[in-house]
């Protein structure tokens, strides 16, 4: 038993027309192992897993389960063989309970009706056995993302999965939820489940995986054990060249204050206090990190600064100009650039082409229009320069923004915002969803802007990013700035503050 691996992919090749998505990939998964599949966007991870899950048929190669060659023609066949997949986007029915979702497709029945009691009982059993805490009677729509993901995992286990594939499972989770997930995975591993963990985040892979297989441009580069692997070695394997993980930056002497908040409070969309009495300063030539766990008022704070949300109290000053009650246009004009936290929602008009997107800030200025008439020619000309300068790949000025990859879309946003010659840059999660190469680019640009004398407010959920880029760090918790820390402080110290420990008492409203 122990000699044959749980799953083996041998020489898998998958072509789509002229494009080779997987070229002769070998992959081996042992029982009770967490095996990470690492690679940049487009490296062929998803294709390989789709082959395994029966969504694609390989052109060459074979799949062996427990030493036996199998042909997987459909996903139902894959499920039958004990392969379970947890997709990035959950496939749950929101209005149904956890138990109902779990048994969907294989319902225990009492006559023509669902035997709900049995369903709930089985859910409870399973959740106890694998240590996945969920309430069988809760409706899925009322659950948090982390809990929904546990339901997805449970459902795969319910269908008898012995090989579990998780497609970028942490992309939707907060740092804490990710840690919880890793605990679950370790427990499953102890039970003998074999797990494939797809990711492009190096620290996570090093945290949870036993072995790591790296794909690059459809080919397997190497499989390495976790012991001995470092972020640097993995990044080099992934990208194929040396990558600067640590941002290189010199010390800085900050100048005058460019963004100054004094006692700012604001409410969220439900009318509840979200930003409480926030005072902060971002000076010329410094990067101020705003660290915090998701949904602690960061989004509302940014919106308040940008004029998208009205503050209840306080003043906001940009480069000497009071913009407390200004709308977005005046705030932008005062010299603020905004790298939006969700580029699809606020950063780009996906249906616009790149030239139009790059002109969003300035379409009304003489650079692009005269007496109310715009000049597409000028937009395209400007776009050509910017796309080159910011190394945007896969797009011409006439390309629709929606058809670019995430990293290149972000470069378009950054190109537009930095080209506006701002005094202050609000960078909200500027590297969310980007791969290593693109992250390096964004970080380098932000440091360059700092060195050019601009002020940068960096809001991020990634502690690594905050610590490596910032000159000083503010910690936000429940809408309040609870501490200022040097970036060299330990992750633990930050963790305590971000979860409400050591809360500053003076000034608390």
């Amino acid at each position: 038993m122990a000699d044959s691996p749980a799953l083996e992919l041998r020489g898998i090749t998958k072509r789509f027309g002229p494009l080779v998505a997987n070229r002769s990939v070998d992959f081996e998964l042992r029982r009770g192992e967490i095996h990470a599949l690492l690679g940049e966007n487009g490296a062929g991870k998803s294709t390989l897993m789709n082959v395994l899950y029966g969504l694609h048929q390989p052109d060459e190669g074979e799949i062996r389960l427990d030493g036996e060659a199998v042909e997987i023609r459909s996903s139902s066949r894959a499920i039958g063989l004990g392969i379970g997949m947890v997709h990035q986007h959950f496939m749950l029915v929101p209005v149904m309970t956890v138990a109902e979702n779990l048994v969907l497709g294989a319902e225990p029945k009492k006559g023509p009706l669902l035997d709900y009691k049995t369903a709930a009982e089985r859910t409870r059993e399973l959740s106890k056995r694998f240590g996945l805490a969920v309430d069988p009677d809760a409706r899925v729509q009322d659950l948090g993302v982390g809990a929904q993901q546990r339901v997805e995992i449970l459902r795969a286990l319910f269908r008898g999965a012995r090989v579990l594939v998780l497609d970028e499972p942490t992309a939707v989770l907060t740092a804490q939820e990710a840690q919880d997930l890793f605990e679950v995975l370790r427990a499953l591993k102890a039970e003998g489940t074999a797990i494939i963990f797809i990711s492009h985040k190096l620290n996570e892979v090093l945290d949870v995986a036993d072995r790591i297989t790296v794909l690059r441009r459809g080919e397997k580069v190497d499989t390495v054990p976790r012991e001995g692997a470092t972020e640097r070695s993995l990044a080099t394997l992934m990208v194929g060249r040396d990558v600067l993980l640590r941002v290189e930056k010199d010390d800085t002497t900050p100048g005058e204050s460019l963004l100054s908040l004094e006692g700012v409070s604001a409410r969220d969309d439900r009318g509840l206090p979200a930003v409480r009495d926030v005072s902060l300063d971002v000076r010329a030539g410094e990067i101020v990190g705003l660290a915090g766990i998701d949904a602690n008022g960061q989004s509302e704070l940014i919106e308040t600064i940008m004029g998208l949300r009205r503050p209840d109290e306080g003043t906001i000053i940009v480069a000497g100009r009071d913009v407390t009650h200004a709308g977005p246009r005046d705030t932008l004009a005062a010299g603020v650039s905004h790298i939006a936290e969700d580029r699809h929602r606020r950063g780009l008009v996906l249906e616009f082409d790149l030239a139009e997107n790059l002109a969003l800030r300035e379409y009304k200025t003489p650079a692009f229009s005269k007496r109310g008439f715009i000049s597409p020619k000028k937009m395209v000309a400007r776009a050509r320069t910017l796309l080159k300068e910011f190394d945007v790949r896969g797009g011409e000025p006439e390309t629709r923004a929606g058809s670019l990859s995430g990293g290149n879309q972000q470069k378009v946003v950054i190109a537009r915002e930095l080209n506006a010659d701002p005094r202050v840059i609000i960078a909200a999660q500027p590297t969310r969803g980007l791969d290593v190469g693109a992250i390096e680019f964004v970080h380098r640009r932000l440091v360059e802007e700092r060195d050019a004398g601009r002020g940068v407010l960096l809001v991020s959920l990634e502690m690594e990013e905050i610590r490596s880029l910032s000159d000083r760090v503010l910690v936000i918790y429940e809408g309040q700035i609870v501490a200022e820390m040097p970036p060299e402080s330990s992750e633990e110290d930050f963790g305590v503050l971000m979860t409400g420990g050591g809360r500053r008492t003076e000034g608390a409203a």
Partner: protein
Amino acid sequence: MSDVDDELPPDATVAARLATYVRAGGVVTPLITLLVAFLFGGLVVLITGHDPIATYKAIFNGTGLNWFFPWISSEDRTIAALNLQQTLIVTTPLILTGLAVAFAFRCGLFNIGGQGQYIVGGVFAVWVGSSFEGLPSLLHILLAVVAGMLGGAFWAGIAGVLKAVAGTNEVISTIMLNWIAIWTGNYLFNLGGPLQNSNPAQKDVPVSNDVLESAKLPVFWGDPQLQGLHIGLFIAVAALLVFWVLLNRTTLGYEVRAVGFNPDAAQASGISVARNYVVVMAVCGAFAGLAGTLDVLGWQFRIATNDIQTSQLGFFGIAVALLGRNTAVGTFFSALLFGGLITGTSVRNLDPTVFEPALATNLTYMIQGLVVLLVSTDVLVIWLWRLRRKRRSSAVLEAA
């Protein structure tokens, strides 16, 4: 995996959905839409015991489009010319009511109020056109046109302001404004109404005063006495051009499209979404108001309460815009199509021995309804399209 291409978020705006739809199918899908609608129509004709091919042929001849065929006899050509003039007279307001819907769509708004705006435009035009005796003709026409457009703009602007200030759904408010326009118009021209005609001989007729000669649009093809084709057609075609330039070459159009595709991103870049809603609705109303104006100044010359209640041209604008993909060129052709259908199935033009015009009019409405229905199922088309692409090249997407 970067599958952002063609990935529609569930809360995508109407404009974004339509853009995806258009990209997915080009001009092929509207043609298929039309084909299916005609097939269904033909089926119904068959069920009623008639020959669908002969019926469609008769309808086609009723449109007068056979005038373009070089081989028809000179006698037929004379009749065809008359029919074609009728078709183009109807096409003129359809272009404009179509634009009234299309322009709103591009800003992510659904203007169902074309009918009301059309009526208000007509009311203003008939009032100005029948007053101010002694004005030079050009000035009188200009004055009536401006009044009609402003009237329509004001009417639609109400819905825009409600949306901008109170967030009122424009679909609801424009439908309500339609009814207010219909019943107000009814009151104005009804017996004893403030705008009922002042002719003692017509005291018992609920109709307005006639438009004065100086405000009538010149006829350039056919006999003015026999309802020849007036120059309103050129004004409508010019409006198509204005629509295109406005949308694609002005800062307003740039804002409109940005708001239509992604109001959040537009707002974050400093565009006032609320202001755009008001301006866009007003422009739409001006288009629809112009439609009513041209009908009044071009061939109706008066408005009876009966006209107000039976007119459907504003509603047809929805189908025109949807089928025309909210583009200038598309709107022209679909307006011509529906103009032809309306004329070709009318009592006056359809050969009653082939198919009873009373039934055929319903056929037109049915085809209109089917077009709206089929275009509204864009989700289905997009889904089919994606399925095909996924099969063909999911790896290409992945590698992008």
